[in-house]
């Protein structure tokens, strides 16, 4: 056992710092490539199609069921206090502020992040990225940037769809199934949900999560060891790191946005 030796500690710290620096530089490059990516919008469009459209069904189904469950649970607790009329408010605030962005980001990491990591990691393993560099094509610009920006565009749209479908799901269970007064359901919601404070902050959250999840997926793919095992490890790491990052960021963002 020699992990405590100064040389090992030094090596571990140095390689961690190097990874961090690589990641930060790649992030700055990807953000800087926004204009370039938008100029060749065809590439970004194909990624939005791949990451967004194909995730739509899982996001919409999850949103619907989360809305159902929120309405059922919310109704059970609220009717104890005789305030079942604020069910719409509870469901909407829960979805728009927290569950919409967070659950969408977690699903997005599982559905789209993994495929990004695996695709880029396999390109690395198959030396396609090296081949591009040989042909003086920058892989960061040609491969990573369109994927990154495609994910950043798709994620807030998916979160909005999730929240909207969830609200409709809550309405279906609350009003149609249980029989809460429909006017009170929408009225209480409309009097207390604020466009900028609640809906707007939810959108800000989903943009931040989109950047975080897509960047982690792209980075893990790019840094993956060029072996089958390396790619599989990178894919696993994408899900673990993206999920933890989303949950951690969510706490920080909530503390910043909703504490007085």
């Amino acid at each position: 056992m020699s992990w405590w030796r100064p040389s090992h500690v030094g090596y571990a710290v140095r390689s961690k710092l190097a990874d961090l620096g690589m990641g930060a530089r790649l992030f700055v490059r990807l953000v800087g490539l926004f204009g370039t990516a938008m100029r060749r919008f065809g590439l970004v469009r194909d990624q939005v199609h791949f990451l967004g459209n194909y995730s739509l069904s899982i996001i919409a189904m999850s949103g619907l069921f989360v809305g159902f469950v929120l309405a059922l649970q919310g109704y059970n607790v609220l009717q104890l206090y005789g305030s079942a009329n604020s069910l719409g408010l509870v469901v909407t605030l829960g979805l728009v502020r927290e569950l919409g962005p967070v659950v969408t980001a977690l699903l997005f990491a599982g559905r789209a992040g993994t495929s990004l990591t695996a695709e880029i990691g396999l390109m690395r393993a198959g030396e396609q990225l090296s081949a591009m560099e040989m042909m003086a094509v920058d892989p960061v610009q040609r491969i990573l940037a369109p994927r990154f920006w495609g994910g950043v565009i798709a994620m807030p749209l998916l979160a909005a769809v999730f929240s909207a479908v969830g609200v409709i799901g809550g309405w279906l269970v609350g009003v149609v199934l249980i029989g809460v007064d429909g006017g009170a359901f929408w009225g209480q919601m409309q009097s207390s949900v604020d466009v900028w404070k609640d809906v707007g902050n939810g959108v800000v959250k989903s943009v931040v999560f989109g950047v975080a999840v897509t960047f982690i997926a792209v980075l893990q793919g790019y840094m993956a060891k060029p072996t089958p095992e390396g790619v599989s490890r990178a894919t696993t790491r994408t899900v673990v790191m993206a999920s933890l990052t989303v949950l951690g960021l969510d706490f920080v963002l909530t503390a910043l946005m909703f504490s007085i």
Partner: protein
Amino acid sequence: MQHSKNDIWVGLFVLLGGAALVFLALQSANLLQLNFRSGYVITARFDNIGGLKPKAAVRSAGVVVGRVQSISFDDKTYQARVALEIEKRYAFPKDSSLKILTSGLLGDQYIGIEPGAEEDNLADGSMVTNTQSAVVLENLIGQFLYGKAEQGAAPAGGGGKK
């Protein structure tokens, strides 16, 4: 730029996302009504606001006519200064009185506005002087217990005098 068959699906996806946002903004947060809800601001001083919060409703005869805009502490009079935004279409006489009330036993606190009889109406920036503070449950219980103790002590005291 050449077109591809993905164009239409990506377009539909983006439109769907936009529609979801618009739905959330209009249906849940009622953006349109918020924009029209502009009104005049009146201020009032209360000895104790209890649990009143900004954005609480201002009601007259049970109908919401405005919202509490801000609450601050005035260290000259040691009172709470509450700014209320009343909707433009409602006018109240100058001598209207304000009360802090509670909806239900454990519900939120709101401000009830009771119209007075004067002909001039409250305008932007006017000050309402006739206010009644929130009922603080602890004070109420304290008074009740004190009253009970007085009642209990009175006959005993009377007996002592005899």
